C-alpha cells in the first residue's frame, strides 16, 4: 500500500505547493498584480520549472567517475550545458560587436536582434566561411589516408588520441576534422544550390498560377498534388536508383541527378506556398492598376508580386534549406547520395555509427559519429532561429 500512499502524497503536494507559492508571493510582495492575477496552473508551472532547474544543477555537479567507470550521462550533460552557455556568450559578444561596428542600417538591425537570431546569424556566417575556404582551413585533404586508423577524438595520447589529429581519424585513417570542413563545402554547397533551384522553379510557377489562374492553375496544382502524395524520401530513393543507372550510361555525375531530383520534389512545396501568397497579392488594387496600365507578366511577377512575397518566401527558404540538407544527409546515409571519397556529413555519421555503442564506458570514442551529426543539428537550429526572427519581423511590419 505504500505506493498508493506515495501517490496520494504526491498529488496533495502538487496541489498544495503551488498554492503556498502563490500565497507566499502575494503576502511578500504586498499583493502585486503579478501574483494576484496568477492562475493556479501558472503557479504550478513556476514550481515545476524550479524543481527541474534544481535537478539539472545537482546532476551537473555529480562526479564524472564512479569507481573508475566514467558516468557518460554526466559527461555528455556537462558538454551540452557548457556548449549551450558558451554559444550564448559568443552570440552575445557577436551581437555587441554588430551593434558597435558597421553602417547605421546594420547597427539598427543588431540592436533589435534577439540573442537566438544573433547566434543563428553567427553560425551561418561561420559555416559559410568554412565552406568557402575549406581548402585553406583544413589541415589535410578529404581523401588523404593515414597509417593510424580509429584515433580517438580529443587529442590526448593517454586516451588513445593524437595531437596531430585533434578530432581523430575514421576506420580507414582519414582525418575527421578535415573531412568535417570539406563536408561543409559539399553538403552545405549542394543543399544551397538545390534549394535555390527549387525556389526558382516552384516560385515562378506558383506566381504564374496565381496570376493566370484557370486551367493553367488547375494543371499545375493537380500535378503538384500528385507529386506531393508520394512520400518524399521514398520517392527520392526510387528516383536515385533510376538515376544511378542513367549516370553510368550517360557519364554524368550522380550528384547532379541528386540535385535535380531533390529540387523537383521540394519545388512542389515552394509552389504551394508561393501560389497561396501570390493569390493574396494579385487581388490587391496595385496589381489591378499595373494590369490596367498594360504591364506584361514578367513585370507583374518580379516587380509587383515578388517584393511583397519576400518575407514568407525567405522564411520558407530557411526551412526548405534545412529539409533539403537533411534529405541529402539521409540519402548519403542510405548510400545513394554524395559518393565517397567526397566527404559528407550524412555518410560520416553512417560510417562511424557503430562507435555510439562505446558511449557507456568510453564517452570520448562515442563522440566520433556525433561530431558530424552535431554539425548538421547546429546548422539546422541556427537556420531556424534566423527564420523565426525573420517571420517575427515580417509579421510585425504588417501592423
Amino acid at each position, binding site marked *: 500500500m505504500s505506493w498508493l500512499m506515495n501517490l496520494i502524497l504526491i498529488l496533495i503536494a502538487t496541489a498544495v505547493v503551488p498554492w503556498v507559492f502563490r500565497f507566499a508571493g502575494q503576502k511578500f510582495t504586498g499583493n502585486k498584480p503579478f501574483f494576484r*492575477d496568477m492562475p493556479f496552473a501558472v503557479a504550478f508551472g513556476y514550481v515545476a520549472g524550479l524543481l527541474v532547474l534544481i535537478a539539472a544543477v545537482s546532476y551537473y555537479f555529480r562526479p564524472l567517475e564512479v569507481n573508475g567507470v566514467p558516468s557518460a550521462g554526466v559527461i555528455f550533460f556537462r558538454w551540452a550545458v557548457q556548449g549551450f552557455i558558451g554559444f550564448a556568450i559568443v552570440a552575445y559578444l557577436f551581437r555587441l560587436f554588430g551593434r558597435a561596428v558597421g553602417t547605421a542600417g546594420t547597427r539598427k538591425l543588431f540592436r533589435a536582434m534577439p540573442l537566438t537570431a544573433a547566434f543563428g546569424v553567427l553560425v551561418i556566417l561561420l559555416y559559410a566561411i568554412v565552406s568557402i575556404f575549406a581548402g585553406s582551413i583544413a589541415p589535410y585533404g578529404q581523401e588523404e589516408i593515414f597509417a593510424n586508423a580509429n584515433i580517438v577524438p580529443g587529442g590526448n595520447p593517454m586516451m588513445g588520441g593524437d595531437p596531430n589529429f585533434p578530432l581523430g581519424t575514421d576506420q580507414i585513417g582519414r582525418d575527421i576534422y578535415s573531412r568535417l570542413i570539406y563536408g561543409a563545402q559539399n553538403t552545405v554547397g549542394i543543399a544551397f544550390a538545390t534549394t535555390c533551384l527549387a525556389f526558382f522553379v516552384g516560385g515562378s510557377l506558383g506566381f504564374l498560377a496565381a496570376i493566370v489562374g484557370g486551367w493553367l492553375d488547375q494543371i499545375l496544382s493537380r500535378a503538384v498534388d500528385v507529386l506531393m502524395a508520394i512520400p518524399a524520401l521514398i520517392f527520392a530513393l526510387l528516383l536515385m536508383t533510376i538515376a544511378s543507372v542513367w549516370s553510368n550510361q550517360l557519364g554524368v555525375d550522380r550528384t547532379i541527378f541528386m540535385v535535380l531530383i531533390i529540387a523537383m520534389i521540394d519545388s512542389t512545396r515552394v509552389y504551394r506556398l508561393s501560389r497561396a501568397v501570390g493569390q493574396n497579392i494579385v487581388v*490587391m*488594387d*496595385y496589381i489591378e*492598376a499595373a494590369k*490596367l*496600365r498594360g504591364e506584361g507578366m514578367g513585370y507583374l511577377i518580379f*516587380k509587383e508580386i515578388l*517584393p511583397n512575397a519576400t518575407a514568407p518566401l525567405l522564411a520558407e527558404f530557411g526551412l526548405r534549406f534545412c529539409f533539403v540538407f537533411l534529405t541529402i544527409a539521409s540519402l548519403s546515409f542510405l548510400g545513394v547520395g554524395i559518393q565517397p571519397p567526397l566527404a559528407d556529413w550524412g555518410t560520416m555519421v553512417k560510417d562511424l555509427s557503430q562507435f555510439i555503442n562505446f558511449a557507456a564506458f568510453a564517452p570520448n570514442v562515442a563522440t566520433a559519429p556525433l561530431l558530424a551529426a552535431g554539425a548538421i543539428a547546429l546548422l539546422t537550429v541556427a537556420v531556424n532561429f534566423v527564420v523565426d526572427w525573420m517571420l517575427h519581423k515580417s509579421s510585425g511590419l504588417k501592423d
Partner: protein
Amino acid sequence: MTQQLLKIRGLKIEGKSDEVWSPIVNWIDLDLQKGEVLGLIGESGAGKSTVGLAAMGFTRDGCRISGGTVDFDGVDLVAASAAVKRNMLGKRIAYVAQSAAASFNPAHRLIDQHTEAPTQHKIRANAESELDGMELYRRLRLPDPENIGFRYPHQVSGGQLQRAMTAMAMSCRPDLIIFDEPTTALDVTTQIEVLAAIRDIVEQFDTAAIYISHDLAVVAQMADRIKVLLRGDEVEEAETRAMLSAPCEDYTKSLWAVRSFQRPAKPAISAGATPIVSLKKISAAYGKSPVLFDVPFDIHAGRTVAVVGESGSGKSTTARSITGLLPPSQGHVEFNGEVLPLDYRKRSKDQLRQVQMIYQMADTALNPRSSIGDIIGRPVQFYSGLTGIAKRKRVEELLVQIELEPGQYIDRLPSELSGGQKQRIGIARALAAEPQFIICDEVTSALDQLVAEGILKLLAQLQDDLSLSYMFITHDLATVRAISDEVVVMKDGKVVEQGPKAEMFQPPHHPYTDLLLSSVPEMDPDWLTNLLNGRGVDNIGDAAVGKM
C-alpha cells in the same frame, strides 16, 4: 438628481512601436452621469477608441495604461484584479464594435451568442435569456423578432447585425455601453434605422453610453454632451447644442466648416458636343448573376459625374466595366466617339492611358515595397518612355502638382506617408499617364473629413488646370454636393435618376433619391427626431424591406 457613474482622471495611455513606448493618450478627464450619453469625436489617431476601451479598464495588445484612474461606480478599473474586471465586463459595462460582421462568431446562431453573457454572469437562465433576447430584438425593431435570433450572422444584413449586437450588449442591462463607431460601415439609409434603434433603447433602459464617431452629424443626434479629441488631448467639451451653435476652439470650428466646400456651377454643356466617355446601355454579370442592367450615361470633357448609391448598387461594377476589367455582356463604351474594346487586354496602350483609376483604399492601391518615385515613375516611363533624369524631373513635377515636396517624399515608401498623402500619390500615379478621364472610386471615404476636403479641393484644382473629366463614385452625398456637376443615382444595378446637380438637389425627386437625400445626417440635434416623425416609424421598416 444625477449620480456619477464613470469618472476618469488624468488618463494616460502608451503604445509600443519599434520597442519604444510612445504616448497615445496624454491626459483625459471624463465624467459620465447615470443615463447620460457622451459623444467622443475626433479624427483617426485622436485616441477615441483607445479612451473608449480604457473606460472598461482594457487596452489593446501593445498598449498600456501608464497613469490615471478609471473610477466606475466606486471601483478603479485600472488597479482592479482580473477577477473583479471579469465580473464587471459584459454585466455592467458592454461594448459594441464598429464591425458587427467581424465581431460575431460566424459559427454560432445570434441567440446563442446573445444568451452567453447573462448565463455566464448567472443573471438569468438560458431559456429566459432567449425570451428576453426576442423582446430586445422587438424593441430594436428587427424584423421577425421571434425567429431572427435563430439565424447565423451571415444570414442577416449589416444593419440588422449591428442592432443584434446592440441587443447583445443590452442583455445584462448594463449601466454603461460603449459604442465604437457602430454605424460607420453602414449605408446612410441603414444608418438611420440603427441610430434610431440605439437611441430609443438607450433611453428606454436609462443606460449611460459613450458614443464614439468621427461623424459630427451622427454624434449630434445621439449625445447629450460632446467631447472633441485631437492627438490624445481633449480640445473641448460642451453640451451638444452649445457645441454645435458656438464652438470655442479653432480646431472644432474647422471640423464644423468642412462641409461648406462647394464648387461654382459650370455653364451648361452645348448641345451636340461629343461626350468624352459614353456608356451605351451596358449590362454586366459576375458569372451567371447579373449586376448591371442597361446603364447609360455620358461624361463630358472637364466635367465631374458623381455616381451615387448604396453598397451593392453596382457603382464600382460600372467602373470595372468601363476599364474593361469586367467586360460588359451587352452594350459598349465609347471614348471620344470611338468604341473601346470590351476587354482591357485588347485595348491599345494609348486607350489604356486615357482611362485611369484612383482607388478607395490607398493602402492596397500602392505597392508597399516600391518607393514613391518608382510608383509614379513607372507609368511615366511606361507611357512616355522617359528614363533617368527626364523621368525624375517629370515625377518631381507631378509631386509638386499634388502639393507634396518632391525632395522630401520621392524616396519614401508608402508606409511612411499618412492616409491623405497616400491618396495624393494615387492621384499622381493616375496623372502620370496624362489621361483625359479619371475614375475616382470612393477616394475620400476612408479619410478623415479635413483630409478628404483637401483631396476634393486638389481634384477640383487639377480639373481646372488639366481639363480632366471625372467619374466620381461615392455613397456620401456631402461629397457629391461639393464636387459634382452631374449626378447619377443607382440602385440594384439600374440608373434610377440622372441630371445636373442643381436639379438633383431640388425637388421633385424620384422616391429613392428622396430617401437617400433625407437620410444624410445634418448638424442639427433635432434632425433625427424630426425625420422620424416625418417618416413615421413604419416607413423606416419599409425602407429596410425595400432594400432587401
